[in-house]
């Protein structure tokens, strides 16, 4: 037992994320248990009409998978841009005290360039949803 437990301590992976792992496993287990219990308890009276997708009471027209708009793609791309930006900002925020004025200027330049991208999209009316 002691050997086993000491080696768990050695593994940085388990040490940092042991609790997260247990917690996640508990969440998955709960969802699984609920769905399992439900599948045992609930009635199953199959009727073909029950399994038609909902479309305000009338029979559905075509398939459910229609095209969405390109706008969503644009917002997705802008989101990627800002997410990458955020990811770079985090280490900078942690170390700003050491980086000092130099770090500040670096980040002002970085954010200014990215803000240009946002402004371009804004100016071109992409951000306007209509």
């Amino acid at each position, binding site marked *: 037992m002691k050997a086993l437990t000491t080696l768990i301590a050695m593994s940085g992976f388990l040490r940092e994320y042991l609790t*997260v792992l247990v917690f996640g496993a508990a969440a998955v287990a709960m969802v699984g248990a609920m769905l399992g219990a439900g599948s045992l308890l609930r009635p199953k009276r199959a009727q073909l009409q029950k399994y038609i997708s909902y479309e305000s009471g009338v029979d559905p027209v075509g398939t459910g998978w229609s095209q969405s708009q390109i706008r969503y793609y644009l917002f997705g791309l802008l989101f990627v841009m800002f997410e990458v930006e955020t990811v770079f900002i985090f280490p900078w925020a942690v170390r700003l005290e050491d980086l000092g004025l130099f770090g500040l200027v670096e980040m002002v330049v970085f954010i200014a360039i990215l803000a240009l991208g946002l402004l371009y999209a804004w100016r071109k009316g992409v951000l306007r949803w209509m």
Partner: protein
Amino acid sequence: MLAAGDPLFADGVDLTVVLIVIAKTVVVFGAMLVSVLLLIWFERKLVADMQARIGPNRAGKFGVLQTLADGIKLFFKEDFLPTQADRRVYRLAPYLATVPAFLSFAIVPIGGTVTIAGHQTRLQLADPPVGILFLLAMSSIAVYGVMLAGWSSGSKYPLLGAVRGSAQMVSYEAALGLSTVAVVLVTGSLLTSDIVAGQSGEGLFGIIPNWNVLRLGFIPFVVFFIAGTAESNRPPFDLVEAEQELVGGFHTEYSALRFALFFLAEFMNTITISAIMVTLFLGGPSGPGPDSGLIGALLPVFWFLLKVFAMLCVFVWLRATLPRFRYDRLMDLGWKKLIPLSLAWLLIQAAFLVDVKWGIVVFTGAAVMGVLLWRAMEVGHGATEHEAPAPPKFQEVR
């Protein structure tokens, strides 16, 4: 460099430690489930009060068991799997919605350090080295729950709700991340335990608390609050399931327990986002009281719960007060207001941290730029935007 973690793991992991971990997990897990049940009841009751109704009053005293009754009922309801649906993804989606909602709570510090069975441990489930980034990671996984639930149903309303909702969630996730950076900036660490420790102690004049909401000048808090509301799809940002437009939104085709799981996840997210807000901006478990003894161990938990409860009340209040946003307004708010504002505020704050005079320079610069941009974007260009909104275009306003 793992020294900063929970003291529980400092001298190896033996059986007691594993048991403590499991005990902590079970207690928090159970508490979260119970609080979700209570929150749903509380929300219905409070909204009823605000609308001069009575609300649930049958099951149990004051109807407090209403949610439990509803939940039990859903166990006995037939579950449909539409023929059009993509079966595997349809079954996977409830997991993807529920599990991240639980997991993000793991990084929230609930109380101070206590000693259980000879082991010192923090009243916090996990303190991973990535700290608050864990929240962002989980909220990016949570998008999949909504997106895949809607897509896999193979039906039109859910698809619309899903695309809408995922675009909304990603838009506000950017603002959420940027307002979190402000907290990291003053703390100098990603760990939630450090963020809470940085807010303990006394602030100005000895009475005003040293909370980040005050230290950061409100703006990151407001941005985080709005973004968090949108991220958890709470009203007034519940466009994902706008029932007047999309029937049930992304979970239209879900019934019985699978539907209940989405419902659970939504309220879980509300609790989690309140707890994260308390952690980041409202001092976490810090509050007046003795440092040692039983009271010293329990009082922080009390303060934490009190603050979370206050935040939850605000969320319910918002729901009772505000009408739902229109989708174009929602996107406007996210991209044209919250993101530029949080970026500018971040730079101003960083400049003040480096040197006060640079702070003033950057502040002036940002203010001038802001005014110029406002004129360029809104007054010069978007004249039509402030007139009567364009007539409804069915394919596009969604």
